[in-house]
């Protein structure tokens, strides 16, 4: 409910970018069928290999964790901001506070436990977040757009638990449906959730426990960073996406890895799991 997942930032059907449409080889799945949601979900799931405890919103992150449980990370467990762990909902939850998450779950914690003991308590390996703006160090804005904090052009939902997820999780995966210069910016209008580099510049407060944003998964490709002072670097583009297009759609001078790769398209097995088992009514696989 309260984290800015992509569902809240973006609504409506999102097809994958035109370039991807043209280029996707269709070796493993007909590219016409691969939606943006499917693409982002598959790459989010793959990035979960080796992780155990994930803090995530409903929708795409939930689907990604489910897919990872069936593929690269059988023991991965999802913790929802509403305090639910080990949920086994009979259908896709409509928000993180959907009571469909509760029957058959392993636990429901009160919010003091979730925020104090789980998030602040550094029990999370990966937190999935969304944002209206991200900068080169993975600092996030989900508060407002505009110059005047008191009278913003657009008032956004705010932190919810994003500040605590960023501060407490070992790493953050950022999922952005639309990779544009308006969302990938040189300077945030408001720093809601600072990564460790921004935090280190401040004079007061406890340092974040983790590395901040380590993966950004977009409709154009994947950016990663691993050290505090490291910038996000384009490490992979989706099939048919020219890296110069990604640089053009980024509001700062984006670093491109010398070992730039092309992502493996969703496999038939991944798509089959998503479509036939995990979200057969296509609530999220729009």
């Amino acid at each position, binding site marked *: 409910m309260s984290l800015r997942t992509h569902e809240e930032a973006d609504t409506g059907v999102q097809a994958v970018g035109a370039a991807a449409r043209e280029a996707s080889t269709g070796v493993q799945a007909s590219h016409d069928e691969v939606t943006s949601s499917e693409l982002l979900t598959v790459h989010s799931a793959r990035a979960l290999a080796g992780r155990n405890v994930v803090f995530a919103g409903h929708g795409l992150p939930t689907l990604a964790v489910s897919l990872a449980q069936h593929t690269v990370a059988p023991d991965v467990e999802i913790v929802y901001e509403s305090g639910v762990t080990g949920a086994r909902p009979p259908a896709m939850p409509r928000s993180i*506070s959907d009571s469909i998450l509760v029957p058959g779950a392993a636990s429901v*914690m009160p919010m003091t436990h979730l925020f104090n003991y789980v998030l*602040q308590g550094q029990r999370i390996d990966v937190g999935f977040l969304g944002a209206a703006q991200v900068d080169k160090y993975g600092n996030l804005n989900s508060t407002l757009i505009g110059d005047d904090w008191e009278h*913003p052009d657009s008032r956004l939902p*705010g*932190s919810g638990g994003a500040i605590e997820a960023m501060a407490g999780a070992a790493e953050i995966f950022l999922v952005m449906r639309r990779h544009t210069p308006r969302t990938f910016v040189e300077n945030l209008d408001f720093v809601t959730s600072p990564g460790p580099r921004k935090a280190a510049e401040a004079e*007061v*407060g406890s340092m*974040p426990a983790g590395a901040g944003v380590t993966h950004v998964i977009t409709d154009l490709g994947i950016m990663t960073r691993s050290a505090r002072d490291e910038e996000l670097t384009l490490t992979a583009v989706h099939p048919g996406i020219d890296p110069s297009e990604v640089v053009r759609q980024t509001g700062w001078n984006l670093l491109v890895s010398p070992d730039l790769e092309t992502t493996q398209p969703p496999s038939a097995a991944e798509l089959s799991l998503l479509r036939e088992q995990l979200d057969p009514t296509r609530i999220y696989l729009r």
Partner: protein
Amino acid sequence: MDKTLSLPRAISTYLSDGDTVALEGFGHIVPVAAAHEIIRQGFTDLILARMSCDVIVDQLLGANCLRGLISSFVANSSAGSLHELRRRVEKSDPEPLWFDEYSHGGMVARYQAGASKLPFQPIASYRGSDLAAKNPRITSVPDPYGGPDIYVVPALNPDLTIIHAQRADKHGNVQAWGMLGVQTEAAFAGRRLIVTVEEIVDEDIVRSDPNRTIVPAHVVDAVVAVPRGSHPHSVQGYYDRDDDFSRQWSALARDPEAVQKWLETNVRGTSDHDEFLASLGSDHFETSTIHDAYSTPVNYGGRA
């Protein structure tokens, strides 16, 4: 002590103009009927504390009940924007709103300090966030154990807290299950406390499962039976959420006049929560039925 009251009586007894009132519930067991009664009785100049906003925040704003808001999430859950709220914040339309903003972790910490009668609660987040820069009430203290100065947030002690739950006995022992949010802390933090419940049950039911009690009777001032009092939010084991209602609100509230008309017809024009529910249409609740899933009883037995 029998603490049962009618909803109008509970609100008129324990709320005053200018109060800070907390309405808590995180997308589940939300005291919506109580918010509507506040609108009906025409309270003004309230400061609302509510971690995660929803339709009732827009409705209380539209009804001009609020001069301020203490919150950490100001969208309509995943259903869209709260346009009354955005007009107030973005354009001071019709007037400015005092907005005291935190993160969810900060709000939890504020209620916890309030419940604990501590002046503040430390919090490990906020370093480098503009939220801390923007809000003078978020400050810091030195760490006497050698770490960097740590952020703190001040105690939140609402004049009145209102929560909703599945059930209580007439004395006010409150039981809830499913997603519990920050309700226990908000309840203890409040100087006064009203609890609305789906049903008031015999105390033997409550006492068969004392660990299920989230707020003990001595903290409660009034307990009020308000069936379906959380609509459009769900109540585990009682009814499902009404997503259509929430989505339609975000569409409707783009038009300030539509908000006023809705409030006149559905809240001010209804005498109580039952009439409000009836105003939504007789077939409105057909889609929100739920299945049954009973807990396995546990044995509380001891020495006889």
